[in-house]
Structures are given as C-alpha cells and as structure tokens.
C-alpha cells in the first residue's frame, strides 16, 4: 500500500517521467481512497498551469528596478566598450 508520501512522490515524478504500469495502478488506487492526495494532485496541476501562463516567454510580470548606482556603473562600462569598438574598427 502506498502512503501519502509515496503518492505525492509519484504525482510529482509523473510530471517528469512516464510512470510504470504498476506505479500508475498503485497511484490510482491510492487516489481513489485519499481525498488529500487528490487535492495535492489538483494543486500541482494548478501550480504548473499558473506558472506557464504567468511566464510566457520570460517576460516577468514584476519589475525589480535596477539600482541607480549599478545602472550608472553599467552605463560607463558600455560607453567604454562602445568606444573601443569604434576605435578598433577605424
């Protein structure tokens, strides 16, 4: 008999690999009896769905501002390198 811990592992691994027939049957039987693990499976589905929708190609919904000092420093580095480029090409 699977414990909830085992079942949660199989539910997780089922997102990363194909479960064996035996594992699938064991899991299905456990889920049939266990409301908590059915909720866990649903939560995992929700999480994955929400992440995929929120991510969309890596454009994050949140913007953490680049600190001013860092921006200044990077601007100087970019300036230096832009000049290097034009010097070496002429």
């Amino acid at each position: 008999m699977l414990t909830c811990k085992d079942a949660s592992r199989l539910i997780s691994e089922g997102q990363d690999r194909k479960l064996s027939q035996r594992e699938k049957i064991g899991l299905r039987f456990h889920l049939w009896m266990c409301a908590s693990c059915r909720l866990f499976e649903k939560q995992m589905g929700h999480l994955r769905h929400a992440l995929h929708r929120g991510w969309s190609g890596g454009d994050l919904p949140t913007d953490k501002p680049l600190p001013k000092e860092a921006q200044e420093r990077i601007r100087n580095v970019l300036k230096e390198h832009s000049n290097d480029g034009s010097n070496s090409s002429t």
Partner: protein
Amino acid sequence: MSISEPERWLEEHGSALYSFAFLHVRDEHRAEDLVQETLLAALKARERFQGNASLRTWLTGILKHKIMDEFRRQSREAPTPDSPEDAWDAAEARRVAENFTDSGRWSQPLTNWGDSEQDFSRDQFWSLIEQCLAALSPRAARLFVLRELWEMETEEVCKELAITPTNLWTTLHRARLGMRQCLEKNLYA
C-alpha cells in the same frame, strides 16, 4: 549627441533584465553583473540582432545563456562538507519531512485551491512565487525553474547539470512540496 544604442537598451530593459536575473541567482550583485555581461555581449553581437524578434526577447535570450552557464557551474561544483548548499539541503529535507507523519500521511489538511488564481492579481501571485522560490534550496530552485518555467525536458536538464534522473526526480519532489507548502501558507492562511 543623443545617448548611444546600448545605453538605451540599459534604460529601457535594464530593470526587466535585472528582475529576471535576480529571480534566478538570488543575489543582487550577481544579478547586476549578469545585466552588465548581457549588455556587453549584446553590444558585441549587435549585428546579429534581427529586427523581427523583439529586443527584449533577444536580450533575455542572451541573459538566459549566461544564467545557464552559472547553473552549470554551480551544479558541477564539487560538494564540500559544510558548504552552504548542504546546510540548505538539510533544512529543506527537514521541512519536507514535516509535511508527513511518521506513518506517511499528510500532517496538515490540504486546502482546495479551486479557481483561486482569480482571487489575486497576477502581480501578487508572481511576487509570491518569487518569495517561495527564494525559500527553496538553491539546488531545488534551479531544477524547479528549469522544468516549470523554462519548460526544459527532463533529459536535457540532467545533461546540462550533470545529474542523474533519480536525483532530479527527488529534488523536484522536494521543490514542489516546498512550493506548495509556501503557497498554501501565504495564500490561505
């Protein structure tokens, strides 16, 4: 003279790149460095930028390569006893164990999340995801991000990070339990 093109990239995309980098490396200075490295690489490769992709996407693509390099390096570093990663792992293993009783049942009742995504804004949800990711061990967070956000195949992740599939499954199980626990605590407390 008006500001140069790379400086404009910095103005317009600096913060987006920085947020992206920070989510992955969890360190402000490292994230700043990655933004700089990305813009320098972009400057060098600017002829290769095709106008048909958005500039943001192109820059993010370069940044992703740099993050992957960093992940590879972190993952391949020989584990030393008492390394910070080990301490994280131990704490995480304890936290995961707390999910279950000795007989392997859930120690706390689970909540029905239902269609609850609609109950909070996209920004709220996302900042919570960031917060929960930051609470995972670096190892677990790396794998979770590559699988669930970058949507890389399991085999590819194992190859890139030089880990076994078993290691990946175990760590992702932990990561998902950790994310679940954190979300439930913060959303439905």
